[in-house]
């Protein structure tokens, strides 16, 4: 799985698959196949795809650790950028088709409606991640600082689930499902990190008296 050609092939396939929901959505919109409230349908679809790609991005590292497939990391940046792409579409659907760029109204909403506050925050936190997604930036910031910054994706993921949970009327099953999946993915990382820590107490006991 190391040849340049194989990497290009894998990335192209992932790219096309990741783009297909947006293509389908655009096609459905123009052929009037989104039902009676197409703007609401677009809002919902772009929202869940953002969540799905955030989850997919979070799944890469646990999967890599489980399988030893290091090439998976090559896909992580693309998946993360697609999460940002769908998040941007979702944000623009709201700011344009719902709010008609009424900046005053939007600021009021972000401040007044908690589900919009967390949604907006989740989106804004993705911006520095998208901007620093290149290898150039890993070099510029240094691996450790870059990793720290990109841990913001954990916050985005959690806020995204809360955003979804707070906007449904009564059917909390779907947001809870995403919460469970993202919870498991974050837990997997936590467990791994805890396993990596040395045990200082043991070293002390071993000291001869």
């Amino acid at each position, binding site marked *: 799985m190391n040849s340049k050609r194989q990497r290009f092939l894998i990335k192209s396939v992932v790219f096309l698959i990741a783009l297909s929901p947006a293509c389908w959505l655009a096609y459905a*919109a*123009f052929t*009037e196949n989104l*039902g*009676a*409230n*197409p*703007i*609401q349908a677009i809002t919902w679809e772009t929202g869940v795809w953002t969540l799905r790609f955030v989850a997919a991005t979070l799944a890469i590292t646990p999967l890599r650790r489980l399988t030893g497939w290091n090439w998976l990391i090559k896909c992580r940046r693309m998946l993360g950028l697609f999460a940002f792409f769908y998040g941007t579409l979702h944000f623009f659907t709201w700011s344009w088709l*719902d709010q*008609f760029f009424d900046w005053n109204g939007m600021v009021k*909403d972000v401040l007044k*409606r*908690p*589900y919009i506050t967390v949604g907006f925050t989740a989106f804004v936190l993705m911006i520095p991640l998208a901007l620093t997604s290149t290898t150039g930036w890993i070099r510029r910031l240094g691996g450790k600082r870059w990793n720290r910054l990109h841990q913001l994706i954990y916050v985005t993921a959690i806020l995204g689930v809360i955003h979804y949970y*707070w*906007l449904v*009327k*009564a*059917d909390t*099953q779907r947001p809870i499902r995403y919460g469970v999946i993202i919870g498991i993915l974050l837990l997997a990382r936590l467990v791994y990190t805890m396993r990596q820590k040395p045990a200082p107490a043991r070293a002390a006991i071993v000291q001869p008296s």
Partner: protein
Amino acid sequence: MRIRKANDLKWSDVTPKALYVNRRQFLAVAPFMAAAAAEALSPDEARAQGGLPKLDAKKSPLSTTEPMTPYKSVTTYNNYYEFGIDKGDPAEYAKSLKTRPWTVTIDGAVKAGGKFAIDDLIKPYQLEERIYRHRCVEGWSIVVPWIGFPLGDLLKKVQPTEKAKFVEFTTLNDASQMPGVRRPVLNWPYTEGLRLDEAMHRLTLLTVGLYGEVLPNQNGAPLRLVVPWKYGFKSIKSIVRIRLVESQPHTAWNDSAPQEYGFYSNVNPTVDHPRWSQATERRIGDFFKRKTLMFNGYDEVASMYGGMDLKKNF
């Protein structure tokens, strides 16, 4: 041809200011409108759409002259959780609903109640077509040509006693016909209620049809309520019981989230849902949003709430 004079026009005829002011943007985004709007048929074309039994109904002066929402949208975009929680679920799954035989029980504080077969129940009444605005609490709205008769006429017939202060309604709750009730999304059976004066109001319609035909299952066949000045969830569907009671009845959404869905739930742009604004709405088929009207534009109901704090009694 009846030539309309100036004093024939009502406030509901006035083009919403947002639409009028934005009419040029409206035209500029016409290509998007094609994508955003469902196909609009003329009212007469739309009337022949469902292939369901036709109903004869006289026209009513209480109808709005606003453009009606296309039949396809009205019958495929529904909240009817007994058949699934997605908007398209009722149209897909409500075929399993058996609307005959159908018995409606009228009991409680009445002198002439009983169990009635639905056809016997509605036979004495002249059906009217009422074109009403219908506003969902979620922030979208439609205009529907309902067919029914005033609930008040039925209530007068069953002779409520002095104990009757409220009317409670109950929807069918049958897991074998309604796949959605297996999930406790709401406490089944779905119940709703009105104060007696609201129930007796001439706008409150006991409804059996729409667009010139019998109600499709997903719209609450064979008998539903339409209370046009309240949020749509109060217009309870597939009624099996009407009970006159002394104290305020439990209602499904109020039980589910009392701080979000009140007993009255009058359409009110000044009282927000705790999580979202109620100041504007998306009229299905429109690209731009419009301002929500107090009491959904049915100002004649205001006198029932004189002196009431509508922020407290939301």
